[in-house]
């Protein structure tokens, strides 16, 4: 039911790796390491500034993919990957967007299940990819029935 969305992309959205957001995020995952939050440690590091934790891109705005209407309930997060060319630097600008990479259905223990693979991208100001991530969302039969009923 999402096959027709494969290949669709969101419009690019400008994000900033904000110091306050990084600190709040690091605190929420219990990881207030000085490399993320202490300015002096950042200055003295090989990065010359603070960096963000690897799962920080969860915070970014990736824009919306037109026509892709996912419910905010009943989805199961199955898998998640991140690939980095380098760590994210605090204060830098990252241009983000996402794309429907794949959709397929499989019979599972909870009936027919849908697997939606979303790929997200983060680029620097020069358009060079800094990170990519993929998220596999499992859509259970119960949820799919509701969606079809729309």
């Amino acid at each position, binding site marked *: 039911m999402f096959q027709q969305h494969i290949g669709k992309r969101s419009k690019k959205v400008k994000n900033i790796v904000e110091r306050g*957001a990084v600190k709040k995020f690091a*605190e929420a995952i*219990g990881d207030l390491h000085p490399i993320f939050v202490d300015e002096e440690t950042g200055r003295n590091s090989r*990065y010359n500034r603070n*960096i963000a934790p690897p*799962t920080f891109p969860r915070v970014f705005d990736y824009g919306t993919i037109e026509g892709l209407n996912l419910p905010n309930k009943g989805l199961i997060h199955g*898998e*998640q990957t991140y690939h*980095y060319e380098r760590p994210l630097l605090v204060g830098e600008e990252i241009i983000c967007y996402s794309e429907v990479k794949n959709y397929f259905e499989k019979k599972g223990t909870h009936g027919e299940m849908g697997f939606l693979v979303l790929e997200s991208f983060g680029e620097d100001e020069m358009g060079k990819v800094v990170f990519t991530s993929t998220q596999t969302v499992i859509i259970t039969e119960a949820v799919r029935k509701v969606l079809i009923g729309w």
Partner: protein
Amino acid sequence: MVAIEELHIGDELEDIQLEPVDRLTLIKYAGASGDYNPIHTIDSEAAKAGLPGIIAHGMWTMGNLAKLFSSYYQEGFIQDYTIRFKGMVFLNDVITLKAELAEKNGSISRFEVKAVNQNGNEVIKGEVFFNTYHD
């Protein structure tokens, strides 16, 4: 702390055991991440979804697991981090974070990583490819 380059296959990073999961922690993660799915914070919404109680965001656990590597960023960085979400994390669960070096290939050290609960069940499992700088 031993440098990642000096680890041998089968060596483990020091485990980290988290405090029992509490609601405020998940509320903070909701706020910090922007993931306000109410099954992570509100009992009645979790019940409506057929769950025995609120569950931690999978990404909260994945975020925690990466901290095994936070002291090594001067030496290298996490190039790839892949996770499969295997089990739910409930309030008061005690999660232990683990990483074991599985393979070395040039500058890349591949770790098998996981978070297990107090019953020894894996709640998330995956790999970290740590890329060491050589300059």
